[in-house]
């Protein structure tokens, strides 16, 4: 197809970009970016084998010392300057406790600082989270010290703070070292946004979680999704109050859906019915989501609210909860406008 509109589009794009700013530090900025990535990813490898030996001698005792969470951290040392050695994963990588099991007791960093050198970090939903949410299934094993630096860099909570009293999700961020030792902090993504290190508290639970998701996104772009059959199925919660909120950033127009369930609730929020979509239906749903999702919010009133939720699991295992709003589905400032065929498919799944 080559029509007048395409020609005018070409002209319009050229005309809109007539002038580009002169940026004399562009190549310096690019080098700085490359250097920071190299520093984070390969650390001491870049400085040669001799340095590796020296670093191993100095870093390993630190890791061991921190394995119980009580050792003396790197107070006063600029953490971003510490090269992150490729860290060996523990024999038994930490997994989030299941919803029913008792929480596993873990050390909290006594002085409010996480030691560098962790092999992995994982976020879990706190079992007493005021609002349920579904954490990522994958652990972060790259750039872990970036998260350590972010958390350690959060300001210590002020003595007198006025906090809102809304409920929100809470998480545990668990750092695990090569020897299997763990330390955890707790973050409340509501109120004063406190991150608790035992007795000490810092401000910025949302910021720490956002940093985690940013690095996780980068890790995913390098590693790709896990095998689809390994992903757990989805079932609808018994009430809307138990519906997990979506915290992991998602772009619906690029979301690959592996599993999906549609849930309907009565006026009081109790479960009425649910339907699980077949693999073929999931493929259809996935294509429709990618094709007909946009960013934005809906400011049109919906006179006949339907208490319906579509739960989807992405190829990375994330759970995304989309709320039905008339003929649309909404999540996190994104709107999906399904086709009639997809709406019919969802209706049929509920019967």
């Amino acid at each position, binding site marked *: 197809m080559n029509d007048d509109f395409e020609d005018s589009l*070409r002209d319009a794009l050229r005309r*809109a970009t007539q002038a580009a*700013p002169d940026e004399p530090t562009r190549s310096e900025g*690019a080098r700085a*970016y490359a250097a920071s990535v*190299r520093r984070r990813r390969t650390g001491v490898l870049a400085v040669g084998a001799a340095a590796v030996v020296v670093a191993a001698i100095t870093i390993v005792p630190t890791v061991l010392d921190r394995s119980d969470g009580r050792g003396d951290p790197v107070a006063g040392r600029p953490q971003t300057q510490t090269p992150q050695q490729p860290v060996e994963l523990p024999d038994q990588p930490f997994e989030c406790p299941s919803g029913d099991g008792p929480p596993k007791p873990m050390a909290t960093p006594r002085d409010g600082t996480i030691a560098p050198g962790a092999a992995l970090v994982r976020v879990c939903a706190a079992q007493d989270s005021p609002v349920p949410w579904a954490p990522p299934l994958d652990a972060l094993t790259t750039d872990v010290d970036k998260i350590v630096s972010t958390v350690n860099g959060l300001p210590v909570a002020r003595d007198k703070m006025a906090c809102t009293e809304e409920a929100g999700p809470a998480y545990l961020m668990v750092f695990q070292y090569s020897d299997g030792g763990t330390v955890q902090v707790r973050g409340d993504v509501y109120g004063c946004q406190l991150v608790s290190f035992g007795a000490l508290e810092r401000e910025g639970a949302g910021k720490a979680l956002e940093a985690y998701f940013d690095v996780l996104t980068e890790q995913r772009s390098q590693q790709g999704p896990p095998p689809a059959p390994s992903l757990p199925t989805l079932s609808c919660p018994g009430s809307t109050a138990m519906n997990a909120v979506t915290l992991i950033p998602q772009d619906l127009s690029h979301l690959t859906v592996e599993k999906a369930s549609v849930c309907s609730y009565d006026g009081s929020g109790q479960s009425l019915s649910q339907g699980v979509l077949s693999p073929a239906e999931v493929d259809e749903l996935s294509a429709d989501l990618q094709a007909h*999702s946009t960013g934005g919010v809906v400011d049109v009133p919906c006179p006949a609210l339907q208490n319906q939720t579509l739960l989807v699991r992405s190829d990375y295992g994330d759970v995304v909860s989309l709320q039905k709003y008339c003929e649309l589905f909404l999540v996190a400032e994104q709107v999906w406008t399904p086709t009639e065929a997809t709406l019919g498919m969802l209706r049929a799944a509920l019967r």
Partner: protein
Amino acid sequence: MDFDDFVAARGAVLWRSAWLLTGDRHRAEDLVQTALGKAWPHWARVSTSGSFEAYVRKTMFTTYVAWYRRRWKAEVPTEHLPEQSGHDDAEQVAYQRDIAAALAQLPRGQRAVVVLRYFEDLTEAQTAEVLGCSVGTVKSQTSRALAALRSSPALANPDKDER
């Protein structure tokens, strides 16, 4: 030509595409520097074959498509569109804002396809190669993007702002 020469010669060209992708000059600069930073370690290997610009372009577009909404969730045209060198009249700024707004309505994949096809003048096959997808996907994304852009006031009536 070394890396600095390349950036000096081609940086503005990359920036223009980045601005069309992001609709914001600071994010455009961020995107260009990120792409250059990712590509720079491969300069010695790729530049000898004369394809470094294509390498950076591919890096830039795939970085843009992969970047999460959270990071750029305020992906809207701003009041501060590309700086003009001496002739930043209000009409041009308004025109740029209209184009940015028209592009902003597209999902990221469609926007990338539009910029590659209609600004970079790549073929469907070349566009597919840059984005790492099939030609069929490029065709369908192009079709959807054009349908959306046709209803955009700035593009539906391209002569509106002609001076």
